[in-house]
């Protein structure tokens, strides 16, 4: 066997054998991570459960330092930013009044039309105890898991908008796949054209829009909301606005995953409509949620109907929530 590989093998004795075993093992693990994600994810969830107390303790001082360094860089623009914020605040107050009036009017119309109300499930407020922003992954770890009723596929929001969805749950921790992650796919609708699209993460700060069929015109500044297709994610969750100046439309996110300490996990999917099957579920449904800085507005809780299995499957396919698609 001529060639460099043979010479290398001849020269080093036992090392090449262990090298090739390890190389094959790493490729096998990569394939296993794709086809049998639950095996790897299970190990990862156990590890994060085990490390969660240490992660919580470590994050506090480091996060303070992080805020300090971030604050230092924005110190020079404080005056200008303050003036801008005052103007925005005045504008927003005006719109708040308009929104309240419209909300009231919509409620009256719904009563008149006897419209089916939006479903609402329970929600869990969780603290962010870990985050990862690497070339192949964009995730965060929360300090709430199966014990608190967090389940795979549930939407995660901060006080601005949708952050991502749960893709892995341990007993006391859960992992969030951010909208910016390479594996994230979320069905969205663009306002005001009502054109539908899939929001595709690419590990950059601005995920791309893969436009669905339709002829609605899309303009920079248009709002992007979740569609609620498939019933897994709630509809009309704010996601972001369409950005200007790119060939492929991309979205500037409302949610700021890097500045978020607390998030809410919304239990809206099919699992929310099934009766509790374990003590953990019962505990979670009766447990009070912890305080959040500024929770999203919660609508009234109404009886919900069971979604057929086919619809659940569609939901998983659309949002990419299956084991294969997640990691």
């Amino acid at each position: 066997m001529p060639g460099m590989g043979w010479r290398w093998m001849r020269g080093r004795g036992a090392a090449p054998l262990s090298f090739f075993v390890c190389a094959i093992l790493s490729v096998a693990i990569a394939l296993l991570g794709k086809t049998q994600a639950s095996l790897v994810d299970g190990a990862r969830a156990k590890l994060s459960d085990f490390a969660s107390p240490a992660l919580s303790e470590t994050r506090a001082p480091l996060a303070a330092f992080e805020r300090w360094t971030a604050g230092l860089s924005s110190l020079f623009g404080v005056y200008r930013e303050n003036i801008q914020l005052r103007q925005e605040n005045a504008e927003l107050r005006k719109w708040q009044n308009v929104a309240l009036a419209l909300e009231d009017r919509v409620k009256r119309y719904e009563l008149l039309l006897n419209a089916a109300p939006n479903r609402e499930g329970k929600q869990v407020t969780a603290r962010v105890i870990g985050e990862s922003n690497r070339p192949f992954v964009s995730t965060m770890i929360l300090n709430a898991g199966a014990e608190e009723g967090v389940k795979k596929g549930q939407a995660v929001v901060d006080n601005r908008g949708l952050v991502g969805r749960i893709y892995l749950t341990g007993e006391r921790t859960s992992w969030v796949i951010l909208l910016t992650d390479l594996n994230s796919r979320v069905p969205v609708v663009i306002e005001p054209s009502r054109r539908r699209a899939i929001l595709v993460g690419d590990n950059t700060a601005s995920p791309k829009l893969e436009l669905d069929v339709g002829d609605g015109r899309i303009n920079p500044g248009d709002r992007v909301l979740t569609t609620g297709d498939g019933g897994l994610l709630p509809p009309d969750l704010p996601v972001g606005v369409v950005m200007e100046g790119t060939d492929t439309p991309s979205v500037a996110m409302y949610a700021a995953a890097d500045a978020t300490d607390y998030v809410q996990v919304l239990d809206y999917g099919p699992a929310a409509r099934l009766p509790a099957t374990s003590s953990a579920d019962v505990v979670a449904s009766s447990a009070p949620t912890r305080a959040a800085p500024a929770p999203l507005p919660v609508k009234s809780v109404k009886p919900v109907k069971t979604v057929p299995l086919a619809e659940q499957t569609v939901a998983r396919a659309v949002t990419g929530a299956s084991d294969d698609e997640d990691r």
Partner: protein
Amino acid sequence: MAARSVEVFLIGPARLLAALLPLTLSIALVVLVNLPVSLTGRLLPAPVLALGAVYYWILVRPALMPPAAVFSVGLSEDILSGGPPGLWAAGFLAAYLLADRQRETLAGLSGIGAILGFAGSMLVAASTAYCLAWAVYWRSAPLAPLVLETIITVMFYPFVALSMGWVQHHVIVPIRRHDETGVRDAIVRRQG
């Protein structure tokens, strides 16, 4: 034969610690860069510091950084970063292959040359991880974050190399020297 058995018997915990130190330090660096906080507000990706340590030990004490240890460090990076498993494990092994084959050349480099040598290994590791991600997930990740991570890792390499050098000269070498002296004395006593 008797002398060898005495030598084997006298490999104490200190020497074992010295043997495990490179692996332990590399995994500690994996934990350090995967602490749940981004000091740059997620603006920059965290460096792969562990590869710097692995590269250093492959060149300086290859016996203490065998392929299995390199694989373990890479897999730790995969698991703790939350990314797809196996990518950095394969990347680290590719860097091992390059550093092991070119050890004489790379170990002789100093200054900017040494940094460029490591940059080559980092590039090989990142390319391998990228290609494997593409092959397995059939989707290409954006290159810019990976390039940025490579550059940041290379910038941090001198600090990692200096730290590992300090450990090598002030911990591992004295332990091994002390241990060898002890073994030699024991053999002499036994033969005498």
